[in-house]
């Protein structure tokens, strides 16, 4: 009976969502060293009356200020200083804020948000004014738009289907992971003109195909790292979006972050699935620290609701690779994690 309930539920969900059902996946990597860490208590100090909802996106700028994009009563964007003291709200009432998905800060300290409710990517300058928008919110005058049945229409150059994340190469080209409806990565020049895409409106599991590309980051050489979530892997592309490598030993790659500086590190989260299904805490929830070539250095974190545990990590900030900031869906919080040196023996498993 229980089994029937479960399968019926899964069936129902798949019918309702008409999309991929995200399964948990135990990472294939074995004997990965545990990186010790502690979570800073009360990192973000919210003024009385202000609350986070699902903490979907987090990113820091060059001064260490922390930006949190959250699904509150309305989706909102907050700024805190390096000590976690509240500074201000940005974009109050913004037309593109409906259902938060990501916030990232570019090398010039511009703040970019990705909203999967309005299908928009919005660039704010450091003063908090909108300076560029990509994608377009569907017109309210069209009313409630039904999901298309049957094959998805071809992905368009300048419209997104529930986009998920944004990144830039050193030349300022813009890379968007798009998303839950489309399954592609799109490259624009710094002026917002379409250059090319890889993937399409169809999900796929072949190399260079994607199934819910859910996070994206670019290294100093311009290589593009895509959290290919529903394929349980990360795909690495060159600057022209040609496949270079696949890392498939780190579980479900929910989100990706690359630290700056001469020696860059790659972080990927095998987040525990929403809903905390029985057994999921035992095999998911950890974040991997890696070299760019995919060599695993170590892992940290685990599923759990208390401080130090993770409840569906949705974004990672790694501007300082030893001080990681994570945003969680199901605990409505942002944690700052201080990573400690690995114990002497550092053998990485692949």
């Amino acid at each position, binding site marked *: 009976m229980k089994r029937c309930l479960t399968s019926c539920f899964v069936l129902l969900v798949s019918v309702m969502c008409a999309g991929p059902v995200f399964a948990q996946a135990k990472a294939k990597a074995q004997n990965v060293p545990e990186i010790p860490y502690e979570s800073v208590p009360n990192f973000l100090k919210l003024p009385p009356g202000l609350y986070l909802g699902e903490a979907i996106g987090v990113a820091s700028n060059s001064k260490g200020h922390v930006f949190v994009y959250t699904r509150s009563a309305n989706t909102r964007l907050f700024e805190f200083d390096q000590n976690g003291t509240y500074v201000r709200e940005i974009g109050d009432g913004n037309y593109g804020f409906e259902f938060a998905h990501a916030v990232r800060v570019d090398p010039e300290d511009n703040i970019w948000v990705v909203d999967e409710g309005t299908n928009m990517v919005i660039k704010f300058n450091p003063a908090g004014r*909108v300076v560029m928008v990509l994608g377009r919110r569907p017109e309210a005058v*069209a009313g*409630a738009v*039904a999901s298309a049945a049957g094959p998805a229409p071809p992905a368009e150059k300048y419209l997104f289907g529930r986009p998920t994340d944004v990144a830039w190469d050193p030349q300022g080209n813009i890379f968007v992971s798009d998303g839950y409806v489309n399954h592609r990565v799109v490259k624009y020049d710094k002026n917002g003109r379409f250059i090319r895409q890889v993937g399409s409106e169809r999900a796929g599991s072949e190399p260079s195909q994607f199934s819910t590309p859910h996070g994206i980051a670019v290294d100093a050489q311009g290589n593009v790292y895509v959290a290919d979530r529903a394929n349980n892997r990360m795909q690495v592309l060159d600057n022209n979006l040609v496949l270079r490598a696949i890392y498939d030993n780190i579980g479900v790659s929910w989100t990706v972050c690359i630290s700056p500086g001469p020696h860059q590190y790659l972080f990927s989260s095998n987040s525990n699935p929403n809903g905390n299904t029985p057994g999921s805490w035992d095999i998911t929830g950890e974040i991997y620290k890696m070299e760019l070539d995919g060599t695993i250095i170590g892992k940290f974190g685990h599923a759990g609701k208390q401080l130090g545990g993770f409840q569906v990590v949705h974004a990672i900030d790694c501007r300082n690779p030893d001080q990681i900031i994570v945003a969680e869906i199901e605990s409505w919080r942002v944690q700052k994690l201080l990573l400690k040196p690995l114990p002497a023996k550092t053998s990485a498993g692949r």
Partner: protein
Amino acid sequence: MKRFVQLVLATTLLAGIPVVAQFSVPEIPFDSALDPLKFPDNVSLGEAAGVATNSKGDVFVYTRTGHPTISLGGARAFAHGGSRLFQFDRTGKFVREIGQGLYGFLFAQQVRVDPQDNVWVVDQMSNMVMKFDSNGGVALLLGRKAEAENVPARGAAPAPAAAAPAAEGRGAAAAPAGGRGAAPAAAGGRGAGAGPAAEAGEGGGGRAAGPAGSGGQQDVFNRPSDVAWDAAGNIYVADGMGNNTRVAKFDKNGKFVRSWGFRGVAPGQFREVHGIVIDAQGMVYVADAGNRRIQVFDGDGNFKTMFLNVGTPAAMCLTPGPRQFLYVSNSNPPNDIDTDGEIYKLDLNGKLVGRFGRAGKMMKEFGTANGIDCRSENELYVAEIGNWRVQKLTLHPK
């Protein structure tokens, strides 16, 4: 299509109508001011739909911003908010907001200022034309907002039209019974065909709009797009982007006078009436975007001529003064910045005097221009849907 070509050819031969772009349309050099409008911290633009100036040089912007909201919890769903009207002075300093929380501000389409400095707002979703006096009070209303919006109920069977694949963001909308829109289906956007529904009539608004294309003899609008006045103060509404596809004329007191046009390609017929302006002689210029032409009528709706050399006309304005010029944007579709986007300057015979700009996201580029103000011939304001901004342009014609 063949018939359309024949028609166009015939009328062209008869009237000497400007058909294609002249071989060399002079490029007009121009600059765009940096941050022409200064916003308080808590004010920002979303899609900038309309811009207009009054006689003092004050600038009015009607914008799609905030959260367009549907309230749940009943058999009917009610729409709120989603658009705001801002006033700036001639230096770009923020003056005030007009119409906070106004019942008819749902989906901004256009703002215009009449010769008496009244501010007129056209809302595409509330299907209303709203006149504000110079103090910001509501002075006259045309049309009525639908009482409720049509939101498919959870568990309801999908409407057949929903199966038609549609472009992202402009898709075919399901339109079950009740609420807003008697049309079989509603499809947004610029007439991009999305199955049979789109041909039956774009646009979802309006109650009791009658058969598609008939254009009611009344002030019931369907996604109206623009408003203009003649010297006597008669009011002309471009109606619009939905099923009506007509021009509706009212006297200065708002009493219905006449209506002309319905969906079609022949002279006097329209597909997506996107804008309207009236010159000092009372000639009416209608942006017939779906047919990629401007049609010219007298004040009684008699067809006079048409201009076929401006691409897809969207935003339009007429300069004042003894020698009037028409500016019109060949606006790019919202889903593509690699095509069109330029603005043309024409004389009143339809001859292209110059052109400037292109589609894009940088300064001096345009993202689906939807409003132009040209109270001063060489100092224009352009409102853009795609770039969420108003640019102030200074033209330097040779």
